[in-house]
């Protein structure tokens, strides 16, 4: 018997029964029954609103926004081996997708080769398996990297995967100095949620700085980092914390790069962000409007940037796995449509819209196409692209934007007071904090205090629904290992050994390791070999577990 079948059928949530009780959003801001000009004035007025495309960018980072170009559609995709993933990439592009967002399998994400004993059962399971440059060549075969920009969802092994992407593009004749694309490469958030760390905290963030510095000098259009509030929210943070912690992390990377002598305007415009979208519509929109102006203020006032493009908060939004339910999964189609609407109202540059079946499985082709169509309907039929920041001027939205900004600043100050985000991550205190909040939220959901359709209200007796499960193909995993065996035989092993030795040496000397990684990548050294070279110098992370 399934858990669902035992649930009581219930009606409306408890929360709506009493109109006199105060209402708070998730960030802890009390919501009034009505907003007027007086409320807006009391919250700070319209001083930070400005115009789209102008400092402080509350209303959006471009003057014309979607009228000039709708958001990029970039569904998160990857599974099995590079051939299988390449087919799905092409399917999505044929269906109107305008960017790619690559999912890697867990061994690739944590720097293991497919023939590593620890990779058993995990090869190609949650993403595409990558062992060497050869896999990148196959995965992106036939895809125009100027027309379709590629985002790599990779963190622990990001320096290696960025190098593979650059090497693959260069080999295909693209000019690296003009190549666009993004890597997630936000290791600090991996320590808080998601967990694909490899090295201890200090060398991990040193590697992030290496990639930013290298790209600033050699691939200035490439975005080497996408700072993720997203996963911190998924781990239990509220929306204001999500953004405040994200900015604290972005500042930590910025500080490291500045310490190397780069000017903030040489790299800040290539920092990008990834935020969550689920929850209260107005809180989300206010979060993004507030966040844009706060980040602009930080980069301008704290770091002294002069180029306005350094100050803009470019972001991907549209996902929010924690908002979806296993119960009544087709309701997730509706939630997804609202998430896309929120992202559009919030001025996102890119959307990776979650799929209705993802609580169960890697999304099917049909589910991914449905997410694309959801965004296409908004673009083509709903008028979302006609004018910029359509909620501007609403007493409620502007007041809430001011309040969210204030709340984020308070949280950032709290982080500073506790020794900064790097220290909090290293000591595990921030992990403990968001985990405690996740527990408290689940208790509120279980008690019905926090309404969730299908979970604590409007439930149905249902057996597990029919879902098209993504098959896990053991054959694909075997083929990946065979290909790796073949690679090890065919490549120039002297070149592999010498480039790996140089990588170890550079890591030991504390210099930027990107040139050495690139050389090893081009010699077809594997992800595992390069990771081991770095581990020999950096060591491995030892997870602090606190409750």
């Amino acid at each position, binding site marked *: 018997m*399934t*858990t*669902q079948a035992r649930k009581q059928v219930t009606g409306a949530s408890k929360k709506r029964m009493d109109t006199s009780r105060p209402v708070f959003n998730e960030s802890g801001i009390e919501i009034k029954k009505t907003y007027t000009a007086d409320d807006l004035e009391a919250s700070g007025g319209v001083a930070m609103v400005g115009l789209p495309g102008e400092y402080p960018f509350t209303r959006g980072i471009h003057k014309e926004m979607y009228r000039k170009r709708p958001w990029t559609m970039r569904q998160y995709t990857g599974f099995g081996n590079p051939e299988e993933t390449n087919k799905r990439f092409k399917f999505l592009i044929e269906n109107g997708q305008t960017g790619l967002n690559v999912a890697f399998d*867990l*061994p690739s*994400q*944590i720097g*293991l080769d497919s023939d590593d004993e*620890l*990779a*058993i*059962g*995990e090869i190609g*399971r*949650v993403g595409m398996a990558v062992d060497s440059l050869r896999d990148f060549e196959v995965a992106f075969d036939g895809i125009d990297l100027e027309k379709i920009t590629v985002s790599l969802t990779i963190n622990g092994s990001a320096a290696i995967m960025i190098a593979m992407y650059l090497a693959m593009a260069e080999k295909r004749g693209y000019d690296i100095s003009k190549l666009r694309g993004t890597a997630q490469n936000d290791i600090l958030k*991996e320590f808080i*949620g*998601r*967990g*694909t*760390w490899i090295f201890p905290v200090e060398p991990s963030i040193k590697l992030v700085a290496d990639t930013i510095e290298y790209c600033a000098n050699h691939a200035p259009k490439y975005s080497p980092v996408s700072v993720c509030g997203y996963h911190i929210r*998924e*781990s*239990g943070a509220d929306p204001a914390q999500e953004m405040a912690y994200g900015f604290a992390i972005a500042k930590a990377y910025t500080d490291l790069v500045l310490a190397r002598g780069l000017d903030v305007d040489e790299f800040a415009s290539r920092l990008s962000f990834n935020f969550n979208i689920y929850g209260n519509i107005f809180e989300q929109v206010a979060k993004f409007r507030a966040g844009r102006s706060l980040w602009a203020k930080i980069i301008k006032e704290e770091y002294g940037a002069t180029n306005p493009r350094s100050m803009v908060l470019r972001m991907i939004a549209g996902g929010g796995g924690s908002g979806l*339910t*296993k*119960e009544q999964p087709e309701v997730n189609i509706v939630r997804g449509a609202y998430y896309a609407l929120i992202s559009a109202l919030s001025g996102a540059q890119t959307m990776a819209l979650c799929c209705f079946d993802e*609580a*169960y*499985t890697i999304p099917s082709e049909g589910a991914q196409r449905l997410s694309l169509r959801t965004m296409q309907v908004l673009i083509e039929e709903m008028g979302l692209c006609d004018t910029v920041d359509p909620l501007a001027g609403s007493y409620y939205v502007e007041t809430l934007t001011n309040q969210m900004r204030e709340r984020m600043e308070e949280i950032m100050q709290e982080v500073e007071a506790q020794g900064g985000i790097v220290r909090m991550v290293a000591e595990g205190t921030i992990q403990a904090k968001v*985990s*405690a909040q*996740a*527990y408290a939220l*689940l*208790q509120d959901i*279980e008690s019905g205090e926090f309404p969730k359709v299908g*979970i604590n209200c409007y439930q149905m007796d249902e*057996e*597990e629904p029919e*879902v098209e*499960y993504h098959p*896990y193909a053991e054959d694909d995993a075997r083929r990946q290992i065979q290909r790796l065996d073949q690679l090890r035989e065919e490549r120039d092993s002297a070149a592999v050994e010498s480039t790996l030795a140089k990588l170890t040496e550079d890591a030991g000397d504390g210099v930027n390791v990107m040139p050495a990684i690139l050389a090893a990548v081009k010699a077809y050294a594997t992800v595992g070999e390069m990771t081991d070279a770095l581990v020999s110098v950096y060591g491995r992370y030892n*997870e602090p*577990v*606190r*409750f």
Partner: protein
Amino acid sequence: MNTNRTRGGIKVLIAKPGLDGHDRGAKIVVRALIDAGFEVIYTGLRQVPEAVAQVALEEDVDVIGLSSMAGSHVSYCRRLKASLLEKGLQDKLWIIGGSIPLRDQQALKEIGLDGIFPAGTRLEEIVDFINQRCK
């Protein structure tokens, strides 16, 4: 590794098997079990089967709990079963939670899992199950 000590009572090991790093659920269950008065040991991420069995042996736990979110649980549990047998731990209460599709549940039961708690299970259901089975 983190141990929450209480006197007497039931001792539970919560482990994150395999390479997956999604630990929100595991940590929530740890907190709920601590609140319910159990002694809880949490392994942290990336535990190989042999390590889980070894900790279960050394700590002499009553319950071995796994949290799986990334789909590799059936093959993992087969390997863990071998380690548990080798160490004579096959009689421990063995439970799993997380993203566990219905279609995998029969295989897991055949391997020897005593309790399966898919995402969405109420926390008290896990607590009650352990209390009843560890009397």
